[in-house]
């Protein structure tokens, strides 16, 4: 689903810069806003995703909860997760969160990917996998702070939500947005979505949700999928939504300065050898050594 290459602003495993000639003007970045306070967990988004993307997961089993399929997979790019939490007043809350790729501004998957162009980021902020470039190493899975990408058993390629980059590219909203019956899912420019979220948060505060807020975590540079939460102070209550997601230090170390440093160390080692040879020279055995050896051998033969 490659968009026009001029729209790609970042490529995985690419040390040179992607085209930067286009000037991003206001509102060029898009975002999906998931209002968990309006969501009824109907899974219409899951079905729309399967239909638009022609995905069919297995008909599984019930593992004692509403969540089905049991987890994200190469065939399930979005999934409703359900949590039952008692609030401070003793009232039950059924927190339902649509899980899927967050389309981070600073994507850990893209950082971790070793295959040039297997993961790209468009100017509108969408992070997309280009499966024809994917080598199936799964490093993106380790790189993701939200545990989203899943590898396919069939083709060993990694898949996740594309934010319907194919639809968005031609001016349509993502399929899940179109299917949402309650308006819990909305899509637009990131600025507009923040504005909409602010209105929603005001309404929620009027309903006693003092800690209502927007989830747009700064640790990954913000996301292009954002949540309105009733309890923005307790994101972990929404089935382990990380409070402060960041690209792991391990990934930063591994994919950051360790790469050039590693190469430099290897090169320096080789160079050290080369210049040792030039300066000190080889350690050779000459005739005197052979004579000394002969001498010693004779002595040993005589005196066993």
């Amino acid at each position, binding site marked *: 689903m490659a968009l026009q290459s001029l729209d790609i602003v970042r490529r995985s*495993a*690419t*040390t040179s810069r992607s085209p930067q000639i286009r000037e991003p003007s206001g509102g060029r970045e898009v975002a999906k806003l998931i209002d968990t306070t309006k969501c009824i967990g109907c899974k219409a988004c899951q079905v729309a995703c399967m239909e638009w993307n022609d995905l069919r997961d297995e008909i599984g089993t019930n593992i004692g909860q509403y969540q089905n399929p049991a987890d994200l997979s190469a065939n399930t790019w979005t999934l409703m997760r359900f949590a039952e939490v008692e609030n401070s007043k003793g009232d039950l809350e059924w927190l339902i969160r649509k899980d899927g790729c967050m389309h981070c501004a600073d994507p850990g998957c893209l950082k971790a990917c*070793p*295959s*040039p162009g297997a993961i790209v980021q468009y100017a509108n902020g969408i992070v997309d996998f280009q499966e024809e*470039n*994917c*080598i*199936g*190493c*799964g*490093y993106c*899975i*380790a*790189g*993701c702070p939200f*545990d989203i990408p899943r*590898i396919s058993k069939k083709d*060993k390629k990694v898949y996740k939500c594309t934010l319907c980059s194919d639809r968005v590219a031609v001016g349509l909203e993502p399929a899940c947005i179109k299917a949402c019956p309650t308006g819990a899912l909305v899509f637009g420019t990131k600025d507009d979505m923040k504005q909409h979220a602010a209105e929603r948060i005001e309404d929620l505060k009027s309903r006693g949700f003092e800690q209502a807020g927007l989830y747009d975590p700064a640790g990954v540079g913000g996301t292009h999928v954002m949540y309105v939460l009733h309890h923005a102070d307790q994101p972990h209550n929404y089935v382990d939504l990380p409070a402060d997601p960041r690209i*792991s230090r*391990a*990934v930063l*170390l*591994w994919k950051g300065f*360790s*790469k*050039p440093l*590693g*190469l430099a*160390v*290897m090169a320096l*080692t*080789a160079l050290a*050898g080369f210049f*040792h*040879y030039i300066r*000190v*020279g*080889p*350690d*050779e*055995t*000459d*005739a005197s*050594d*052979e*004579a*000394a*050896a*002969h001498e*010693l*051998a004779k002595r*040993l*033969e005589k005196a*066993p």
Partner: protein
Amino acid sequence: MSDLELGPERRDAASPEHRGMILRYTAGERTNHWMVAMAFVLAALSGLALFHPALFGLSGLFGGGPWTRILHPFIGLAMLLAFLPFALRVGSENRMQPRDWAWLRQYRDVVMNREDRLPEVGRYNAGQKLVFYAIVLCLTGLLLSGVAIWRAYFSIYFPAVVVRWGAVLHALCALVLICTIIVHIYAAIWVKGSVEAMTRGRVTRGWAWKHHRAWFREIMTRAANSRPRPD
């Protein structure tokens, strides 16, 4: 198993008919070494392809990215499997001894080719022994971390944090190993006669006397004792 046990070859090697050459590595040892070496080269090239974008082109040697990803862990396993018997063969010769520490302390004499000032060296010098230990440690690290990051079969059983740090450890071990091997290869180039030792198996008495005198002494003593005494 040790090169001191005299098989038919050894007897030949110690005999003057062989121009006074000593067999340092048997055909089996040489084969084993080069199997490890080849696996290392392939593992290193495929690993480097995945390590740095600038080297991704190396994946072309293996048939492209996916094949590189598929082959690399199997090559790694092959290296490990090949190294195991080799390590068993030479392990006992690589125990550090007091004279090795003295040898290491005199590293300046080592690099300046002043071997006459160094303590006598057995079959392997302290540098070679360090290489051996580095390889053992790195391969262990590579194996453990490699399993964790082997997405096709095993990653699913490890939490993300283990996989992430596994990848770091894998890269670190690989770096240390590659540098060690660079040193190892250079040492072979530097100390003339070493390449022949590992390609054709024999070294001259002078080479043995100069670089591994204690070992030379040992061989000669053993050879003298095993020869039938003239009545």
